[in-house]
């Protein structure tokens, strides 16, 4: 007896850690079958969309156990009615088949035909589900599920201490299910917010294109290409992050940086941005301020966007150290910046600019290959070439 108590206590503790209701219920059913030595057990979970209880999880001997997803119980089912409308024949919450049978056989019951009818229906339902014991799972006054327990092996009867433990477990399960649902809801909402946030960033990044008439669609193309290069770098093991969360975080920062890499151009006079013909040294100096202007614009978000801001700041550095604003070289340039730098250069080459026509794709690729190791970081170039090759196919 001590054995299963321990197991059940452990189960209760695990419930807090598991946020997927199905996994949780499966674990509980498995533990209960083993701890109490049952022929089979199952769980009828209320499906709010469909408005009925479905047998989502079951375990035990094939043939004896109820197949998962096969059976359902409507809200009008006598078992549901019994649990939720508070018809109580006994002081406890359980339906026990042998007890129902005993009660039906006793003389006392014959007096009330309605009660007798309900008991008969309950007996019938329990026989259909091969249930010896059914337990309700309540959250507040909501019946979120029903635990269906088969007979014990070797025809033993359930002890009152087992039943007591099971009823505590059932209410824990109900709470865990509600928690899991809540958690899922929050996750969905969070996901929506994140998408909305990225779309907002996209809009913001696109604002610069209103000023620079030649760069229509440039930011979003750079973002798409940057993310593809990043995925390729991960595939090649060049981005080595300890865990998935960290990788996602870096990807998000890259996405934001790529969308906002030219945001600083808002601070550059329009006539310089849209100038046809070569720039004077002063004009060049002014335009080269845009990464730093971008950093200043994003200053209020310096904590949240730390890595993205570094990406924006250094996206015009060169691998050989001859870029701007700091003339950083090699591995001193953040990877995010190196990726955006290349994607930016490629997209600039393949689109029309005030001072020249677009290059053919092949010429642009050739140009990038030629500048591998001088302007561009070699492993990023390799990843980029692979991305393009994959797309050709």
């Amino acid at each position: 007896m001590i054995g299963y108590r321990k197991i059940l206590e452990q189960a209760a503790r695990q419930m807090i850690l598991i946020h997927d209701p199905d996994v949780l219920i499966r674990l509980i059913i498995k533990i209960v079958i083993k701890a109490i030595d049952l022929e089979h057990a199952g769980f009828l979970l209320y499906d709010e969309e469909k408005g009925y209880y479905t047998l989502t999880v079951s375990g035990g001997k094939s043939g004896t156990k109820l197949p998962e997803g096969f059976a359902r119980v409507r809200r009008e089912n006598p078992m549901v009615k019994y649990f939720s409308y508070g018809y109580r024949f006994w002081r406890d919450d359980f339906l026990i088949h042998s007890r129902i049978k005993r009660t039906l056989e006793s003389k006392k019951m014959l007096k009330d035909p309605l009660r007798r009818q309900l008991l008969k229906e309950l007996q019938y339902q329990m026989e259909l589900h091969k249930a010896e014991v059914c337990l309700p799972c309540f959250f507040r006054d909501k019946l979120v599920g029903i635990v269906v327990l088969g007979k014990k092996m070797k025809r033993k009867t359930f002890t009152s201490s087992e039943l007591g433990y099971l009823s505590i477990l059932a209410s824990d399960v109900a709470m865990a299910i509600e928690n899991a649902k809540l958690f899922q809801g929050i996750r969905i909402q969070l996901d929506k917010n994140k998408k909305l946030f990225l779309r907002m960033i996209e809009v913001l990044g696109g604002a610069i294109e209103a000023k620079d008439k030649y760069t229509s669609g440039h930011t979003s193309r750079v973002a798409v290409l940057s993310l593809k290069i990043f995925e390729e770098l991960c595939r090649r093991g060049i981005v080595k992050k300890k865990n998935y969360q960290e990788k996602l975080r870096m990807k998000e920062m890259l996405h934001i940086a790529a969308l906002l890499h030219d945001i600083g151009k808002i601070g550059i006079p329009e006539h310089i941005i849209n100038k046809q013909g070569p720039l004077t040294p002063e004009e060049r100096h002014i335009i080269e301020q845009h990464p730093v202007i971008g950093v200043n614009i994003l200053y209020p978000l310096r904590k949240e966007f730390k890595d993205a801001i570094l990406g924006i700041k250094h996206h015009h550095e060169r691998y050989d150290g001859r870029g701007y604003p700091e003339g950083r070289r090699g591995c001193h340039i953040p990877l995010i910046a190196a990726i955006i730098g290349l994607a930016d250069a490629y997209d600039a080459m393949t689109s029309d600019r005030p001072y020249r026509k677009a290059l053919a794709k092949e010429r642009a690729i050739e140009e990038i290959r030629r500048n591998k190791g001088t302007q561009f970081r070699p492993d990023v170039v390799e990843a980029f070439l692979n991305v393009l090759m994959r797309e050709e196919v």
Partner: protein
Amino acid sequence: MGERVLVVDNEKEVSNFLASFLKRRNIKVFSATSAATAVEIYKKEKPNVVLLDIVMPDMDGLTLLQKLKAIDSGPHIVMLTSRKSPTVIAEVKKLGAEVFLSKPVELSEIDKVVRSFLSRDRV
């Protein structure tokens, strides 16, 4: 001959469960998990009622239904399936199945349907 039911379902868990479910009601149960064995048993054992799933590995349930009805149109056919589009239901009824139950099913429905067919035959 006694009361005889044939259960056809590609999922062994389901056919096993239904077999033991019906056996408790003193019904002789045959089960098949493929269309080929279903046809074989249908010919040999002449069941009164057939519980038939639409999704089968070697033949779709509608074709199987047609085939069974062509062999002998006598037995009552109950379709039991997770597909529930109105066109499928209409098709099934046209091919001669008398009852259509969709999964997940209320167990009492299966019980009632099978029992009503068996008692009707007895009369």
